């Protein structure tokens, strides 16, 4: 009898839970507050900058690969929110595992709890099925850049293999060249952020060298930051003195706290929570 009651309660709860009537797991359908997050964060960032435009040292929390790790992601967000010195939060991509609507919604809901402005890179797992459309609806462009306190941050889609399937090119090296061609106006240093990094074969063999050459051609580029590897890594790739940084995954409960100086020097520590 007790079991029957439990089943009945379960059934009634399901019936009144509107989300339970699922139209399609890959549907690209979001509420207004769930969309255009990148633009909303840029607006928020501009307000913060205008209050303190001459900030010399800025701190960025860099977290990545949160797929299938919503529990740990929530804990990480709580941890980041406790640190009032953090100016921005970067997510290195693979926000979801299957690009499902429910994953985008739940991860987005968690991210919206962040106090500091947050910016995301587009991961290969976010690019499956209707993932590209969902990402564009929820966050915005796959390739974008912005400036803050004398630094330029370039986020780009480097999901080479997923875009071969679409007959498109990623990373878009022309976009990156155009971004690097911009003369210094109100920025001195450039930081590159993408999910896939040249550490990985999936970046595309040809792309790895071209990308590296591109970064070497501009000494304003200080660091190239990535996720995807599910492990921490920092170092050179071609013995040219240029360093790449790869952040661990969220399931391992740590993120990188990056400190940028106005002269372009940077320092980082791994923060475990």
């Amino acid at each position, binding site marked *: 009898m007790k079991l029957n009651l439990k089943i009945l309660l379960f059934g009634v709860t399901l019936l009144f839970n509107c989300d339970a009537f699922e139209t*399609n*797991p890959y549907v690209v*359908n979001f509420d207004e507050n769930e969309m255009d997050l990148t633009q909303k964060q840029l607006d928020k960032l501009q307000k913060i900058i205008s209050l303190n435009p001459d900030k010399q040292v800025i701190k960025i929390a860099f977290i990545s690969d949160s797929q299938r*790790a919503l529990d740990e992601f929530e804990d990480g967000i709580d941890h980041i929110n406790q640190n009032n010195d953090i100016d921005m939060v970067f997510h290195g991509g693979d926000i979801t595992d*299957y690009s499902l609507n429910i994953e985008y919604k739940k991860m987005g809901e968690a991210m919206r709890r962040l106090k500091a402005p947050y910016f995301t890179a587009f991961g290969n797992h976010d690019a499956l099925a209707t993932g590209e*459309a969902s990402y564009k609806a929820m966050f915005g462009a796959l390739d974008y850049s912005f400036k803050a306190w004398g630094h330029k941050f370039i986020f780009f889609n480097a999901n080479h293999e997923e875009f071969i399937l*679409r007959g498109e090119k990623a990373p878009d090296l022309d976009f990156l060249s155009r971004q690097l061609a911009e003369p210094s106006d109100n920025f001195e240093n450039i930081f590159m952020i993408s999910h896939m990094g040249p550490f990985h074969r999936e970046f595309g063999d040809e792309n790895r060298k071209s990308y590296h050459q591109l970064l070497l051609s501009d000494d304003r580029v200080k660091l190239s930051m990535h996720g995807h590897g599910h492990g921490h890594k920092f170092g050179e790739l071609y013995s040219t003195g240029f360093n790449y940084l790869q952040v661990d995954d969220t399931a391992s409960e740590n993120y990188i706290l990056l400190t940028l100086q106005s002269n372009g020097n940077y320092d980082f520590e791994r923060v475990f929570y």
Partner: protein
Amino acid sequence: MEIMILREFFIRGVMSLILVLMVLNGVFGQVNISRSKLVPDYAIMQYAGSLGVASIGFGYSVGKNDHTHLELLYGYTPKYESDSRMSSITIKALKTIFSDIPISRNNQLSWIPLKSGLGLSYIADNRFFSFRTDLPYAPGYYWHRTGLRSMLYFQTELVTSFESKVISQVSYYLEANIQDIYMTLKFADSNFTVYDMVKLGMGVRIKF
């Protein structure tokens, strides 16, 4: 907007279904077969149930006491915030686990407490991969094919019977499904609760 799409979808769906049945009936009527096995036993219209906002299809009841059901459904999902609509094609194989319990005395209303079965669904969309062999990924990198899903079904159904020769039965079902991808999510993350894993749909079966 959604209601308009739904209405249009249902009107078109029902009209084409009736047309197909009339043609089939005509063809098999001519050759003097009272009821061919090829003519579906019933038509289906479904809301949600993870196949689309709305689905239409047909089914056959076979086996002992007609307790095994094979169904084919086409599901439609509007584009909403994306650039294109989604179409899905699904095969359901259901088994009546507990047969009819009469509710009214003259058998006009009865209840089938549980039907259960499996489904295979294919999303016909070039953003998905299903049968492609030219995938650039390392073998096994993605364990699943995004365009293919399997699901477990549980249904409960209310059946109304008529004396009419055109439509003999109309039944209403409520369905719960669990999809393979949701099962893996549930196992991996306690934040995805069982309520996130079980998805509902409801529909009508019209028996001719």
